[in-house]
């Protein structure tokens, strides 16, 4: 009788234990707005969203996530302040920081600007990928971004109005060509300074912009910080388009993270569900997140081809998975500027690493979805009604 009773108790415990899910509560911390000063000399400021978006960390260990909140905001503020090209920033003593805006201000003056190691590192990375993409991705496109930016803001009178060819051509004069970078933009790593010399017909207005590169560079740095390595399973997000997942996901039996990718053809549906392992970064870029159709029925988006001054519309969305958020962001941004599948393959091959790639493209009048083998291995679900076509690029 005793034996039978024990067997029943164990069986009941097993049944109840198996079928009761453990509740996992997520905790999020969000970046705070920062003060951006309008001029270098006075104290008028405006409230600025770090990296023009929001950053957050979502984790399952409430105590550990909340434990890094203060440091998260300090680091966000520090990196944004250094990498922003629109405003000036001051340190806790009120002293002006030599940031990207200060570097851009120095254009053509011949002055060297002493800068933080962080700026030197990201400038070197930006130049590396500007050269690798042969100027399609180009950090020296500030003049172009300024020309196009208002076209995407519904608050602007220029909303949905293309710049004229002449305006684009003028802005292109201040976009530094790959062949001129080394003699025009000098990085002195010994003295920790940079010099932005005058070039070509650009008398003023040349400027560097990190765009999406800044926030993803920051994500990589953040997950590398000692205090952030230990916060348990979590998602580090920069602006919803660039994430790094960390650790084993406690709500999935395999420990992986399920990430849904937006469908550029159909707002009501997602394109695919991906299975991402801890430690990997996912980046996605698409034209429709900031774009319009002009009066000639041509689609325009905000990712500009640094060699032509215009957006290209072959790639409608690009999603990649790999180890570095910054590299993934550069890759998706560059892919958006390419004009055919051969260019896509050639660029991916130059990177020399296996990256999982998912592309929505427009070939003539036909929508297509291309996927490479490593991406195919992590697609859990194809939410679209289209078949994904496989491609390889030889890495």
């Amino acid at each position, binding site marked *: *009788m005793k034996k039978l009773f024990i067997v*029943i108790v164990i069986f009941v415990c097993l049944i109840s234990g198996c079928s009761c899910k453990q509740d996992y509560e997520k905790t999020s911390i969000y970046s705070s707005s920062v003060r951006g000063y309008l001029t270098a000399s006075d104290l008028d400021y405006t409230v600025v969203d770090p990296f023009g978006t*929001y950053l957050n960390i979502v984790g399952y260990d409430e105590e550990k996530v909340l434990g890094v909140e203060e440091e998260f905001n300090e680091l966000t503020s520090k990196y944004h302040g250094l990498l922003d090209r629109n405003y000036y920033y001051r340190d806790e003593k009120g002293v002006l920081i030599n940031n990207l805006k200060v570097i851009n201000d120095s254009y053509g003056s011949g002055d060297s600007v002493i800068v933080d190691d962080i700026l030197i590192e990201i400038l070197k990375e930006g130049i590396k990928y500007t050269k690798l993409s042969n100027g399609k991705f180009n950090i020296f496109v500030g003049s172009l971004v300024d020309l196009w930016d208002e076209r995407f803001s519904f608050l602007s009178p220029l909303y949905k109005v293309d710049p004229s060819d002449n305006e684009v051509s003028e802005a292109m004069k201040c976009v530094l060509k790959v062949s001129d970078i080394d003699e025009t933009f000098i990085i002195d790593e010994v003295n920790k300074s940079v010099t932005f010399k005058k070039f070509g017909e650009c008398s003023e207005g040349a400027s560097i912009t990190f765009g999406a590169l800044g926030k993803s560079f920051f994500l990589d740095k953040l997950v590398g910080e000692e205090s952030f390595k230990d916060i348990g399973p979590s998602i580090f997000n920069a602006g919803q388009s660039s994430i790094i*997942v960390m650790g084993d996901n406690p709500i999935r039996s395999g420990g992986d993270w*399920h990430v849904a990718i937006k469908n550029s053809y159909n707002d009501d549906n997602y394109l695919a569900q991906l299975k991402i392992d801890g430690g990997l970064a996912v980046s996605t870029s698409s034209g429709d997140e900031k774009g319009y159709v002009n009066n000639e029925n041509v689609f325009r988006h905000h990712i500009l081809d640094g060699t032509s001054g215009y957006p290209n519309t072959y790639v409608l969305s690009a999603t990649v998975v790999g180890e570095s958020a910054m590299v993934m962001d550069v890759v998706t941004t560059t892919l958006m500027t390419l004009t055919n599948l051969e260019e896509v393959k050639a660029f991916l091959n130059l990177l020399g690493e296996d990256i999982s790639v998912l592309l929505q493209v427009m070939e003539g009048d036909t929508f297509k979805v291309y996927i490479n083998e490593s991406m195919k291995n992590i697609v859990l679900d194809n939410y679209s009604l289209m078949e994904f076509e496989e491609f390889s690029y030889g890495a």
Partner: protein
Amino acid sequence: MELKHNKYDFIIYGVCLVLIVCLLVISNVVTSKAKGDILYAIVTIEGKQKFKLDMNEDRELVLSPEEYPSLLGEMIIEIKDKKVRVKKEESPLHYCSMQSWVDSVAVPIVCLPNEVIITIKGEQIPENDWEM
């Protein structure tokens, strides 16, 4: 004196066991179904949770800067058809009202200049951990 069990005792034990198992399974199915249906929009203002809105009830929530000093102007949060959006707000770039409808636990609405964050929470295991 030790009682001896006959075969009818074992039949009763068996029936009891089957009943217990059935009850557990049914209760878990019912519970998980109920959990899956309950979604809330959690409205956090200035870092503190202020509202927990049932996503099954269509409604508008009007927030004023007089009541919440971090707001740059009147803000209206709308819930309709199990989706939530910021219908009206004041901010330099209007990011959070431009974001429009959200119905996923994986996608928050963040109004940084107003210090308002809206997240959807539920008791079910979400299909996706992140949507982008």
